[in-house]
């Protein structure tokens, strides 16, 4: 992360090493593809293995502005090191440049984040829902999406299960 900060001084907003020794940095959204390309292509850093990507809804956390945080997990086979790139975006404009052109693995993980959190990845080649169906309303992993909310494609039969319940659309 020192190398990244030296290379792109304006890009890094915040750097941190957590208790378990994992290094991460918050990047300004517009710099993300450049920083990721640098991490991947620099022969010393060599972060070629795309781990995964996901978003965090920080609605109920102490510092919740901006609301969403997109996290990319990268791994370097030669350095044997995990690293996390984060981008923070607001609720009104949840837009991040896509990394699908840099890492092919990013394609599906970004679709997952779009599906669950409604983050729009600009220039993503195929931004569709991946686990839920097209007609689904809203984004279920957002903290303001109710836990018991259900949107069945086929109407559910009313089941009287007082412990687990069929959700909100079952027994009144």
């Amino acid at each position, binding site marked *: 992360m020192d190398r990244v900060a030296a290379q792109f001084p304006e890009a890094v907003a915040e750097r941190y090493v*957590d*208790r*378990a020794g*994992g290094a991460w940095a918050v990047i300004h959204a517009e710099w993300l593809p450049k920083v990721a390309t640098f991490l991947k292509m620099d022969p010393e850093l060599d972060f*070629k*293995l*795309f*781990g*995964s990507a*996901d978003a*965090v*809804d920080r609605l*109920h*956390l*102490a510092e919740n502005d901006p609301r969403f945080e997109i*996290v990319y*997990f990268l*791994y370097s*086979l030669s350095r*044997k090191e*995990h690293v*996390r790139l984060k981008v923070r975006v607001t609720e009104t404009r949840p837009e991040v440049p896509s990394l699908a052109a840099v*890492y*092919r*693995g990013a*394609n*599906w*993980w970004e679709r997952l984040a779009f599906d*669950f959190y409604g983050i729009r990845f600009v220039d993503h080649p195929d931004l569709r*829902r*991946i*686990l*839920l*169906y097209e007609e689904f309303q809203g984004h*279920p*992993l957002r903290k303001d999406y109710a*836990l018991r909310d259900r949107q069945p494609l086929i109407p559910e039969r009313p089941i009287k299960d007082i412990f687990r319940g069929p959700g909100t659309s079952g027994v009144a």
Partner: protein
Amino acid sequence: MADSHNTDATKPFNPDTDGFAHEESELESHFQSKHMVINMGPSHPATHGTVRLKVELEGETIVKIDPEIGFLHRGFQKSCENVTWTQCLPYTDRLNYLSAMMNNFGFLNAVEKLIGLEIPERAQYIRVIGSELHRLTDHLTCVGATGLEMGGFAPFLYGMEARELLQDRVTELTGARLTTSFGRVGGINRDLPEGWIAKVHKTLTRTEELLQEMDGLLTRNRIFVDRTKGTGIISAADAIDYGWTGPALRACGVDHDLRKTHPYWVYERFDFESVVGEHGDNYDRYLVRLEEMRQSIRILRQAMDTIPAGPIIVDDWRIALPPKPEVYGTIEGVMAHFKLVMEGIQVPPGEVYDATEASNGELGWYLVSDGRGRPYKVHVRAPGFPVLAALPHIIQGKMLADLVPTFDTINMIGGEVEQ
């Protein structure tokens, strides 16, 4: 083949009749090949789990393939974020129904890192034993199913026999056959049953015999080799770009095993090799899994021979439940028990990413805690997800018959991919 193509877009095209009706002699024409879309799955015998593959065919060649995985989605993350840390364990079990303990222990490892907790040595050994037992069952199922879908029923039966024997040992250890929920934050649930180690040694000997049988039936079998060798090839660079890990990546010749590169628990004490392939095709993925099982047996034997005596869970009532006599006899015990059950473990605020080597690759956990008794965010990096994402890249332009062995050997597990 080309005569079935309707290049004139203005004319309506009937794929069933056009291109053949006007042939002078249908007997002399090519084998009828037309552009068609077939759905493999959900619940197709050749697609494990409930994945649906939308395959566009031109004759027998796959033009386009779109895997659709959203069929089983259970809201794993949301469920975890609304229960206490300990109550997440049954959910993690169900990510991979063949290696529940690995998912379980991997999650716990991440939680313990977040707390900054060192678990007792005996618990680490038992975690290694449990993980390797489940690595065996997982690989046995994968290799057996690969043999089955290539048309050989006997290797599948041998694999199932070995798997059932091992799962009997798992049942004796944990009390459950598939969804074990065996781990606890700070250690494990129960100690090894009496006489269990000797039984496992015997089971492993039998497993080795059965592995030998499977090896003999498949590895030099003409049909099996013809269908797997040189099919489903992915280059190492592409595999890394897609984020492949585990046996699928090692089959491409990349020596990356988290048990070696980032040793956790007591893995660095054992003498074993990380198995590496060469070509990145289906045959190599099969061979890597086969050899990895032998290495797992080596680890198991060493672990069971050297397991030390001692506690199996940390002695900290803020994390582990107090012993029952303390709960029934002392007020402190009652209070600790009550607080743990009602409020959950108070994990300090912060975040962590931790990964373990599950049977199919890197099982990563990104946990965010807000300091209350429940996880704020649970992200699971399922090893099967990037592997399935690369399937279109591997298989497009290849034959339909190659799809089945490729889908077998990448060993996608529905539970974790669909979360």
